[in-house]
């Protein structure tokens, strides 16, 4: 089921909320069970055949985690249990997500003729990573014992189940355990609705609105110079508004239940370096890759060269996580290279004189943005050769189309750029504080005007009007 659909907004969500708060009067456990059940119903609408896989994954990880938490095992045995747990998760992920990719590569190299058509269970990458983090933390002794219903809800919680944010058990389960969240809070519901409205508007009006221009670069016709740039930039903004819109909706929905989800985006195109970009883009994935891959690999503790190697490994695997294709690996590796250059510049580059600081920041913002756009071409293209073809068009300003459509699209792309660079982001508008568990506590005067409320209502109305029948989120395939 999609967040941007009438059945979700007008049927599923109201029923889920009503049941949750009604059962909240009966105690602390019943609403948890209700929400877990609602999450499974949500998942089963488009993925009913994979519900058993999801439940098996939850049971398997909970059992392994329980062994690590509850039993006093010999260190060697503890490591073996962790290995079995993580390997089991990766095996399932690998089978469903990467077996076809592996077979295609084997075919290409050895002409083996293996054909595999395995359906990808939506959300598998997200719930696998969530649970690997749980197992690793259990092994490290950083996890208390959780009740099964709370753990099951932590994994299946429908606002995040399909496309994140990637949740952390230490952040979520204590919130599920709090009795306060089971009582309806009109303030949180209103704020949640407004955040949801902003996310819905981002998705249905902004991301879907710019989508037709993406085909200028990535469609069947070879683009000219201007079309290649318009298409690449249009995709840059489409992806941001699509994914951050989804994250906003997830945060807003969860807030209506009294649960604060972590932020996933923080105006990434305002970044002034690639390091800064990765602190602002898909933040929960960046944190996961840092804590559970980059640091265990050695991080920056084993010298400069190994740090760069670790960065490359982390980013290439991060790319592969997004999809089983060489284009994603290339995208990740390219960001790995960017990060290495960025760290090297920080270490060995010249200091900027104070009077040029502002100028340098603007230059850094533009350079970072263009680097990101170039990398997105790999991310979006059907193949490496297609990506290189588009990039080659982007550096050869010899062929122009510059018709009405291109002129108009340039204006639209410019507007989106202004929106990304100048407008405040959702958390700034709503003063959302994930760690402090507050929202709209310290609003600016203009945010208290009735006009703000009605403007937000208009945003929700436009978001609902923008719902299209066939509009899926780009990152569902991750």
């Amino acid at each position, binding site marked *: 089921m999609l967040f941007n659909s009438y059945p979700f907004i007008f049927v599923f969500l109201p029923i889920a909320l009503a049941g949750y708060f009604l059962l909240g009067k009966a105690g602390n456990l019943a609403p948890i069970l209700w929400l877990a059940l609602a999450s499974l119903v949500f998942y089963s609408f488009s993925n009913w055949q994979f519900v058993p896989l999801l439940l098996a994954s939850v049971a398997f990880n909970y059992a392994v985690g329980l062994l690590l938490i509850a039993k006093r095992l010999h260190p060697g045995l503890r490591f073996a249990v962790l290995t079995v747990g993580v390997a089991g998760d990766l095996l399932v992920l690998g089978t469903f997500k990467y077996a076809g990719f592996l077979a295609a590569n084997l075919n290409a190299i050895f002409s083996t003729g293996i054909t595999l058509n395995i359906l990808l269970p939506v959300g598998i990458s997200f719930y696998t990573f969530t649970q690997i983090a749980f197992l690793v933390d259990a092994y490290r002794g950083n996890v208390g014992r959780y009740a099964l219903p709370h753990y099951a809800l932590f994994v299946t919680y429908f606002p995040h189940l399909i496309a994140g944010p990637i949740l952390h058990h230490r952040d979520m389960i204590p919130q599920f355990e709090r009795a306060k969240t089971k009582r309806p809070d009109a303030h949180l519901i209103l704020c949640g609705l407004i955040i949801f409205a902003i996310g819905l508007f981002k998705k249905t009006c902004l991301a879907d609105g710019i989508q037709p221009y993406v085909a200028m670069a990535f469609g069947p016709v070879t683009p000219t110079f201007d079309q290649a740039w318009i298409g690449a930039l249009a995709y840059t903004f489409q992806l941001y508004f699509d994914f951050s819109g989804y994250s906003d909706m997830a945060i807003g929905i969860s807030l209506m239940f009294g649960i604060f989800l972590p932020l996933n985006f923080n105006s990434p195109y305002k970044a002034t370096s690639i390091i800064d970009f990765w602190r602002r883009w898909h933040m929960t994935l960046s944190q996961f890759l840092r804590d559970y891959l980059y640091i265990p690999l050695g991080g920056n503790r084993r010298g400069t060269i190994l740090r760069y190697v670790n960065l490359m490994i982390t980013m290439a695997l991060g790319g592969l996580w997004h999809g089983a294709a060489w284009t994603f690996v290339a995208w990740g590796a390219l960001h790995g290279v960017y990060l290495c250059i960025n760290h090297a510049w920080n270490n060995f580059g010249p200091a900027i004189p104070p009077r040029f600081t502002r100028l340098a920041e603007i230059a850094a913002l533009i350079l970072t943005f263009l680097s990101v756009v170039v990398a997105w071409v790999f991310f979006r293209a059907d193949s490496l050769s297609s990506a290189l073809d588009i990039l080659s068009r982007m550096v050869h300003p010899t062929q122009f189309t510059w018709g009405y459509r291109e002129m108009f699209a340039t204006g639209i792309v410019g507007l989106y750029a202004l929106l990304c660079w100048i407008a405040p982001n959702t958390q700034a508008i709503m003063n959302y504080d994930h760690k402090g568990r507050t929202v709209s506590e310290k609003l600016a005067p203009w945010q208290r005007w009735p006009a703000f*409320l009605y403007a937000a*209502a208009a945003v*929700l109305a436009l978001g609902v009007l923008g719902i299209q029948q066939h509009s899926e989120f780009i990152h569902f395939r991750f």
Partner: protein
Amino acid sequence: MSKPAKNLLRFLGASVLIVLLAAALNFIVDPLQLFRSARFYPAVYSPDSRMQNAGLIRSQDFDTVFMGTSLAVHFRQSDIDRTLGVRSLKLATAGSTSAEQNFILDAALRRRPKMIVWEMDEWIFRDAPDVDAEAYMPADLYRMNARGIAGYLLGLDTTRESLWALLRFFKPLEIVAHGLAAAQYLKFYETRVNEINALPASADLALFYNASKTKVAYAYNLKNPSEISAGYNYEAMLRNFERDAIGLIEKNPNVEFRIYFPPYSILQFVAMREIAPDTLQLVYKFSAYVIDRLLSLPNVTVSDFRDAQDITHDLDNYLDLVHHSPVVDLKVLAGLAAGEHAVSREAPLASIKRLQSQVDAYRLKRER
């Protein structure tokens, strides 16, 4: 009631009000003319046939439906009317499959036309998703069910078109609307139903249709042999033909079906001969079955223009291997009116045999 609760109600109330205002605007303006013919403003039409056809079926008067793919999409209704002596409605849809054509025709047949003129080729019978799974096919609009009407009235696209339909009344904004239409931002901009998807009368046809373009397409196909055979599966095509064509014709015994096979350039079949001979044999076999089966029905006549050598061998008539110019449109209509290229029930395979011998004999002259 607490202040947050009051604000929550205000917020929800205002949202609902705005949505209802948009729906009311869309109902009153009704850019697709689903509920009534345009009265308050000059009617405007969209080139998006899948969407527009749903409105045309309900708003236009007609006794004949003209159906087909991109090969039929730029015909003018006035030409059809004049040549065949009918009052036609063109519902041809670029890239349409037999499932889509069946669905659109089924909706149009509820208006009880006397005749269907159907441009048919083997390509439309390739396997394709159900109309409800087609991303750009608003199937519920044709059904006029609650989902379709809600999607139309509560759509941002409809609201945008409704607003601009009104804003066009103001002269300065009319120019802006023209610009937005040229940029393909506004979809409803054609003011004459006769001109929907037709090439402008002022267009330089020789620029669009010429032998060098046709030869480039031929060379491209030779380099990409998989493309010319894509979707050709005899069993699937047979199944879809029986379901979408025969099923519809048998369901409407009182309607006359005039089916014609369009004049592809000879290079289409020559390319198959060169790079996909199995596909070419499949086309012959499938055509033989289709013509024989169609002619077994009393309310069907079939014309086959694929062997019309005067058209198909003149490569200046095409922009690629199959798409012919409006000049050929008129020749096809004249041929239909005069009964030229009509396939007789006594010799249903004659046209296919002529085509076969033309394809076998054809040699593309090399440019010096």
